[in-house]
């Protein structure tokens, strides 16, 4: 019996991380889709995870409110980070989001409220697999619909040429900010779901390596469609589990994926463009 329980437990963890990583990949996708780079996805996730865990543990807040807060807190931080940087060239957002991650890590380690370096444990398991995958499915449907609309086309236009997009009447600042905020909300949601299924969170989970791993999900899958990043996340979550030796070299593999994807396959390794009316036949 114990063995079966063990097996189920591992199995559940793997499935949960598939769903959570899928959401994280989508959160990266929204930003990449408008030609920006955020290295703060792990930090947004951490903000969502800690905000939700604290609300549950300290205030015993109702779960829907916890989920809402896990999206609103990172959204507010995204506004603060995005307002000054999105007007400048893309490098500034990338570096400012890196800074966000570092500041968050230091604050989490130092603060007693968040349990310091040990993190928070004993978070009740309120987010089952059905909820996680429902969120992922909902997000995928939403992005597919957006992709096929004038908003998706405007995002692609911004990614290709900001100046021409602006000259076509596309409100650049609003689009960029909306994308960053949506991305932060998704990552925060992923963090909250993850915290409420794995019962334990610590500052180390939201560091620079995690941010880069999330980027490699999206680059492996490509940003031609929202399905690409999710498939990328699935592959990079499953592969190390199937090939144990790969586990120790995860960072190396992620690094190589990023290098090769950008150098040789700028449209992603899995090209699967979403059909928009009027798009490539």
């Amino acid at each position, binding site marked *: 019996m114990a063995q079966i329980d063990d097996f189920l437990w591992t199995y559940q963890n793997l499935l949960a991380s598939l769903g959570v990583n899928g959401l994280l990949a989508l959160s990266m996708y929204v930003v990449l889709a408008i*030609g*920006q*780079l955020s*290295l703060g996805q792990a930090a947004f996730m951490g903000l969502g995870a800690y905000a939700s865990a604290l609300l549950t543990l300290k205030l015993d807040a109702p779960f829907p409110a916890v989920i809402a807060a896990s999206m609103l807190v990172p959204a507010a931080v995204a506004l603060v*980070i995005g*307002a*000054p*940087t*999105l*007007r*400048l*060239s*893309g*490098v*500034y957002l*990338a*570096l*400012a989001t*890196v*800074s*966000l991650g*570092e*500041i968050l890590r*230091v*604050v989490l*380690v*130092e603060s007693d409220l968040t349990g310091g370096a040990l993190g928070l444990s004993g978070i009740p398991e309120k987010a089952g697999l059905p909820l996680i995958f429902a969120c992922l499915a909902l997000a995928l449907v939403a992005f597919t619909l957006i992709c096929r609309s004038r908003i998706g086309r405007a995002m692609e236009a911004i990614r290709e040429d*900001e100046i021409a997009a602006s000259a076509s009447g596309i409100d*650049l600042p609003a689009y960029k900010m909306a994308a960053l905020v949506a991305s932060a909300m998704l990552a925060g949601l992923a963090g909250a779901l993850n915290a409420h299924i794995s019962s334990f969170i610590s500052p180390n989970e939201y560091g*620079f*390596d995690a941010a*880069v791993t999330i*980027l*490699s999900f999206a*680059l492996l899958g490509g940003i031609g469609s929202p399905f690409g990043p999710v498939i990328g996340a699935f592959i990079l979550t499953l592969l190390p589990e199937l090939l144990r030796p790969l586990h120790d*070299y995860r*960072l*190396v593999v*992620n*690094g*190589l*994926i*990023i*290098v090769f*994807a*950008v*150098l040789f396959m*700028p449209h992603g390794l899995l090209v699967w463009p979403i059909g928009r009316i009027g798009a490539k036949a």
Partner: protein
Amino acid sequence: MLGQQIINGLVAGSAYALFALGLTLMFGVLGVVNLTYGFYFAVGAYLALLAAGAGAPIALALPLAAILAGLVAVVLDFLLLTRLRRTRAPELASLMVTLGATLFLYSAMSALLGSEIRRFPAGLLDNGAFALGAYRISVGQILIVGTAVLLSLGLVSLMGATRTGLAMRALAENSDASELMGVDTQAIMRRVSFLSGALGGAAGVLIGLEYNAIAPYMGEAMTLKGFAIIILGGLGNIGGALAAGLLVGVLEALTAGYVSSVYKEAVGFLLLVLTLWVRPQGLFGRPGARRA
């Protein structure tokens, strides 16, 4: 206490300034955000460690490490960025490629050399110290500041007074135009890569000496800090990078002394975020710097 903290901060800050100088050179002239820069920092520190372990004095180990780090920079720049330059890929592409490469390089480095913290052999530096009123400055600290000042002055005069420097500045302004003007941009780019790699490597040796702790991932944190510093200083602004490096060094020392040594690590980033809010062109940048 306060004075001693400031002195220690200026010492670390001068090494930061040197590091930021190479980074801003790379960014300003080559026009790429190259995250492998921190790798040269770590490479420099390890090479000096190896040389010192083999019995070389610091006067030999430091330049040797810097030169080899410069050569590594040339090779990596060639492997990673030639293709992106040719296809005129967007700025963020170079950032992502070098990001991926650093993950690989750091992992490889810790696999080869082990991830534990290493220290320079005892007796590499004279243990003596000078008293300056109530304050102490060690021989090592003087070496650090002296090297940083010397190399910075060297670079500034190179940029200002030589043909290579002129070509570099032309390249920083406009690479297409300078190519048309008959500047061998490839050769200049190689030189800039070498110089910035060597500056990064030298900074790695100096920081390694100051804290006497060398580890493969030391470059990762430093790269991020370096970018915070050059944005503070105004991207591509050499004087700004130097000043911001010193500023961050001092503020870190004061934070470590009066607040907490953990928060010290966040000083640069906090400054960066504040700067972006108040003066996105950097503390010392000209207004209207790099817009989207």
